[in-house]
């Protein structure tokens, strides 16, 4: 409808008006308007009014999305904070050694399913790719396990053969530990690994999400490192009880550690996602507000210009009749 109106005015508006960058293009075309000679009727007020209506709708929608994200954030935030205390004893006992050199690395990338959440998914994918490059080398292999649609879409393009497993639609049901432990079980069963590196966005505050990587080592590597001393050397000072062999306990421990760390990581990522969506929608509403202001000014100018033209026509018509 806008195109038809413009054609009627005899204007030659470039395609950019309806392209993917309508806002900047319309600004430049409206500025072009000002410089055209008077006498030709400028862009009709109807067109500007339509654009104002659609921008106002967008502003309302993004404001609503921001509030929805804020309420969802509040709900998950307490869960995330409570689950933080869970993996700290593991780190105290087994240590979190990102620099351990192992043959088989598995990178678990956690991302969101829905979009419009700012840049957090891209940062996670960037970091996963960087880790992949860092840990690549002769006799070493690195594989991906992907949780979430967005990372899958980005990683499948260039690393399709390295993807072991991808799981989507995590957030359909509210997250609880049993679900995640089943998931962790699944991953551990299907993937051979010496070290699991979990990449996620840690939630520090509503405006800050730091991409983080947690490392979980497989039990064999833990034993090897414990014997060689260093950070894990303390493990030997603990006498292991309960169960037949030390190896069996260590394996159970490693599995439990993985599922706890994964649970915490998924919750933190969910919080970061909601927080990022809040700030993205907030800046979007603000942009829409500014755009609305500019359009209102244009609208008033157009309206006054058309009134002036009418007056001129009437007056010149009248003076032509008299004189």
């Amino acid at each position, binding site marked *: 409808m806008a195109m038809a109106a413009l054609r009627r005015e005899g204007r030659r508006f470039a395609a950019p008006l309806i392209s993917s960058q309508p806002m900047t293009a319309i600004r430049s075309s409206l500025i072009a308007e000002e410089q055209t000679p008077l006498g030709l009727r400028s862009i009709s007020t109807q067109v500007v009014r339509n654009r104002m209506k659609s921008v106002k709708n967008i502003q309302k929608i993004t404001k609503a999305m921001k509030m929805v994200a804020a309420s969802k954030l509040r709900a998950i935030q307490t869960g995330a904070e*409570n689950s933080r205390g869970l993996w700290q*004893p593991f780190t105290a*006992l087994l240590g979190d050694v990102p620099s351990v050199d192992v043959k088989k690395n598995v990178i678990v990338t956690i991302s969101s399913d829905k979009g419009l959440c700012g840049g957090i998914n891209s940062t996670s994918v960037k970091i996963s790719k960087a880790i992949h490059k860092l840990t690549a080398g002769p006799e070493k292999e690195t594989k991906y396990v992907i949780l979430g649609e967005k990372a899958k879409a980005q990683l499948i393009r260039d690393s399709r053969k390295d993807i072991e497993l991808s799981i989507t639609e995590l957030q359909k049901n509210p997250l609880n530990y049993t679900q995640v*432990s089943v998931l962790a079980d699944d991953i551990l069963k299907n993937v051979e690994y010496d070290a699991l590196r979990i990449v996620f966005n840690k939630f520090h505050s509503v405006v800050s999400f730091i991409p983080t990587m947690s490392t979980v080592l497989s039990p064999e590597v833990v034993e090897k490192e414990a014997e060689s001393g260093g950070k894990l050397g303390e493990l030997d000072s603990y*006498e292991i*009880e*309960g169960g037949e062999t030390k190896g069996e306990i260590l394996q159970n421990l490693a599995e439990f550690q993985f599922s706890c760390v994964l649970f915490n990581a998924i919750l933190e990522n969910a919080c970061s996602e909601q927080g990022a969506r809040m700030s993205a929608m907030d800046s979007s509403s603000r942009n829409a507000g500014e755009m609305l202001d500019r359009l209102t000014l244009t609208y008033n100018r157009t309206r006054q210009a058309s009134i002036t033209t009418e007056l001129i026509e009437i007056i010149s018509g009248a003076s032509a009749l008299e004189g």
Partner: protein
Amino acid sequence: MTLNLCVLTPNRIVWDSEVKEIILSTNSGQIGVLPNHAPIATAVDIGILRIRLNDQWLTMALMGGFARIGNNEITVLVNDAEKGSDIDPQEAQQTLEIAEANLRKAEGRRQIIEANLALRRARARVEAINGIS
């Protein structure tokens, strides 16, 4: 000298304060922990944890996990934990009966194993209540 006990589940911190002594159920039996215990890391079975504060014993039902004891600091990480005082006796008894019925009905290895676990969990809860008295 007192022990600092921390009982954590994935959803919340169940207990975080000082105690005098605890009795923990592990895979290889019950162990009692007094101050200045040797450092050990052990697996915790589905069972009850008894806590003593100044001559008063408190019971808690634990659903399996790990415990680390060292330097007078005890950290217990379990899948789920319930304080004995928080469990409703009748509801726990009913859950126990339902679990027993399920075990009798269960067919196939997987169902039997699951029914067994459910039974042990229900039994732990009932024991936790009885343990207080």
